[in-house]
């Protein structure tokens, strides 16, 4: 009987081998798709249990952290759009999306610890994400904006880092599912992240680009004599008027900028020509999405090609078909602040593994340049123009005691029958700039009255934050 006993043993062991094969199939081959099945109750449990990384500000202050139930607590409400929401139903946005892999710890093993955790199936411990945002500057910006619709963007001009980014109305990412339909139906469109995604007519703030192009091309200098005796001119039968008539009939180009003469800039625009104006706009980043990390919209000079003379003239002083985001305007100002070099704006400073021995850097972002827009001399001349605008122009309200501030206001047509959008863009300190500040107030009216005063506390706060 021994052969039969052996045969039986072989049969049983062979069957065991088949069982092992099936176990291997379920646990190795079919496992990924089964584990990802939306109905799998473990997905929900794992998400609750995973230690999602925190989001920190520039100095390490906690901006977002997980509660024990897995939901996320935002400590600075004005950053709702920047950090974004995480919803099983409506998706993920903002930094939560951009750095999801790092925060959840699923973005491939970043360290030996992660590798160990993945193999051992321990609850993932996500890395912390440190932003370039400064909580103090952010709060100052949010406070300055108050409840008014609009946006404030602050860049560190030396690096392109975003110090603050406030939008109104802001969203509260926590428990957004319950409020989703109300948010969608809200005519104020709170889901739009105005600072990075909102596109507005830039008004006179675009004169920064036109003036820089004109000076860089040698068409004008700050001292070039210009005239605007009536406060209006007609181009191709299209009447162009100044928002406010300059106090003198003839003056130098610097004052034409400071007093924001549309007539002077319409004339300059025609001299520059469409092609060169578009080229300079593109050099400043207009037309390309600024790779911030979170969603941004591309600004644009306008689709109509070629432009008529009247369209070119109105584009030159900031109307026409121009659509710019507050972030883009800030990049223009920062470029002037750093001698013509265009900074790439960025908001994620570094990814930090949380170890018991303290944070350890896994990835650090470095400032990068998008290229040169204008020469250093041009940029220097532009700074002088911006300084004049604050000292002797319409931007006086942005002046900060003890610091030289350069700036430009803008008053842009919004929708017919509604007040204009109010803009202010400024850099400080003028002789060695550290920050660029952009204020946009939707339907705020005059830039000099509605936007420029708001910039003052923000400039003060950001200068303090960057003084270290």
């Amino acid at each position, binding site marked *: 009987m021994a052969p*039969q*006993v052996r045969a*039986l043993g072989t049969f049983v062991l062979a069957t*065991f081998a088949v069982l092992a094969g099936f*176990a291997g199939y379920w*646990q190795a081959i079919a496992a990924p798709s*089964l*584990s990802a099945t939306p109905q*799998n*109750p473990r997905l929900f449990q794992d998400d609750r249990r995973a230690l999602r990384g925190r989001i920190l500000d520039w100095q390490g202050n906690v901006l977002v952290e997980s509660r024990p139930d897995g939901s996320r607590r935002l400590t600075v409400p004005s950053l709702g759009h920047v950090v974004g929401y995480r919803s099983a139903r409506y998706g993920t946005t903002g930094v939560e999306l951009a750095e999801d892999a790092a925060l959840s710890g699923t973005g491939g093993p970043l360290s030996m610890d992660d590798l160990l955790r993945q193999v051992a199936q321990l609850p993932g411990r996500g890395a912390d994400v440190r932003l370039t945002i400064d909580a103090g500057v952010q709060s100052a910006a949010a406070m300055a904006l108050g409840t008014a619709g609009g946006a404030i963007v602050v860049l560190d001009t030396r690096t392109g880092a975003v110090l603050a980014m406030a939008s109104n109305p802001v969203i509260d990412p926590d428990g957004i599912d319950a409020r989703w339909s109300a948010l969608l139906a809200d005519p104020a469109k709170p889901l739009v992240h105005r600072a990075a995604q909102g596109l507005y007519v830039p008004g006179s703030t675009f004169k920064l680009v036109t003036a820089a192009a004109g000076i860089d091309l040698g068409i004008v200098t700050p001292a070039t004599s210009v005239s605007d005796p009536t406060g209006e001119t007609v181009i191709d039968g299209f009447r162009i008027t100044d928002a406010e008539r300059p106090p003198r009939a003839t003056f130098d180009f610097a004052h034409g900028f400071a007093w924001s003469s549309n007539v002077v800039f319409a004339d300059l625009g025609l001299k520059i020509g469409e092609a060169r104006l578009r080229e300079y706009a593109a050099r400043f980043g207009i037309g390309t999405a600024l790779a911030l990390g979170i969603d941004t919209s591309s600004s644009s000079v306008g689709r109509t090609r070629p432009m008529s003379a009247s369209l070119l003239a109105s584009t030159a002083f900031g109307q026409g078909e121009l659509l710019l985001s507050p972030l883009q305007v800030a990049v223009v100002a920062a470029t002037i602040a750093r001698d013509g070099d265009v900074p790439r704006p960025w908001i994620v400073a570094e990814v930090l593994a949380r170890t018991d021995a303290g944070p350890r850097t896994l990835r650090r972002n470095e400032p990068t340049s998008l290229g040169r827009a204008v020469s250093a001399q041009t940029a220097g001349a532009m700074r002088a123009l911006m300084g004049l605008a604050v000292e002797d122009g319409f931007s006086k309200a942005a002046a900060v005691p003890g610091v030289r501030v350069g700036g430009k206001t803008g008053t842009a047509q919004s929708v017919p029958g509604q007040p204009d959008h109010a803009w202010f863009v400024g850099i400080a300190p003028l002789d060695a700039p550290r920050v660029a500040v952009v204020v946009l107030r939707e339907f705020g009216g005059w830039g000099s009255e509605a936007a420029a005063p708001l910039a003052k506390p923000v400039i003060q706060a950001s200068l303090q934050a960057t003084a270290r």
Partner: protein
Amino acid sequence: MVTWRMRGRWLEALLLAVALLPLFLGTALLAVTWERALGDARFWPAYAVATAVGVVHLALVIGGHRGDEVVLPAVACLAGIGIVLVTRLVPDAALRQSAWLALGAIAALVVACGPWDTRRLERFKYAVLVAGIGLVAVTLVAGRDLNGSGDRLWLGLFGYVFQPSELLKVLLVVFLAGYLSEKREVILVAPARVGGLPVPPLAYLVPVVAMWGGCLVVLVVQRDLGSALLFYGTFLAMLYVAIGRVHYVLASLAVFGMAAVACYFLFAHVRLRVEVWLDPWIDPQGRSYQIVQAMYSMASGGLAGRGLANGYPLYVPAAHTDYPFVAFAEEAGLVGSLALLLMYAILVVAGLGVALRARDPYRQLLATGVVALIGFQVVTIIGGNVRLMPLTGVTLPFVSYGGSSMLASWLMVGLLLRASHEEAVAAARA
């Protein structure tokens, strides 16, 4: 028959020391994960199991037992994993489980060392058969339905409940070993021919028909698909080993297959099990909920597992009785589930070693029957767990929660030890 002279079973001692490591490490893992002290009452059942196994070993040493030294460690390792798993899944039931295990260990010890001879079992095989039939009859009349399935599979006695089909398995092996070792030569005589067609001998036909009928009763009346499958499979394995004719086995298998197909069409509960086995996604929130959850559970374990008490095996309803392999696979990973299979393979090989060393046909068949029964039981339950076949209600030997099964499994261990001891004594005498 045991000579009361100490005999150092050093191999067994060494293997036991290693075999109990999973029990202690698993308990420590549970303690750390649950943030409980190692001395917590929750872990006493595990220590009781370790003690019971140690006592069995010492008794074998003191009794001068000469039986196989790998069987007990293999069983101890499985039982250790089992009690850790039961503690993790149903902590309140672990104490009862360990009590049944202790009872089983004592029973095994009595069988292995008692003053008796397997020849006596051989002689009284028909008495054993009658006892088995009586057990079925009593269950049919006085059986109780414990799990609300409508199947009356349990017997109550002094407040304890017992599943007679578990004991029946052991009785069946004992009877078949006796019957087949006696009749195998008769069966092997050239078949008589009636009208040119070969007619199998009566000694073959009678047990085949009887087994077939008996299993059908179990299947139809008690609706115990798993036990029926197991009984018949064990019978076929022993028939094959005894007579070595594959076509007789295939013929018997075909007859059983026809009955199984008939059952599929006749009984809704059989049909349901087959349907959810073939396509679990037909009703993942309803009829196939358990099987779908089991698939999620195994997938979640992956290669390394979630770690004991760190996964969610309780999403699978009745995991501790129906899906113990899946629960272990989730928390110990593929690494663990393959190790578990290897341990059963070790038990099977150790048992076959006993059978191969046996020179007496009865003891050889007895050992083979025990191995076949344990092996097929493992295949049936794990096969149901990993969707190799429809799930049936049999237990995973030494691991599943269930008292009757634990007792029956240990009885079989006792038989293996006994058979190998008698063979060793006989070989020493020759």
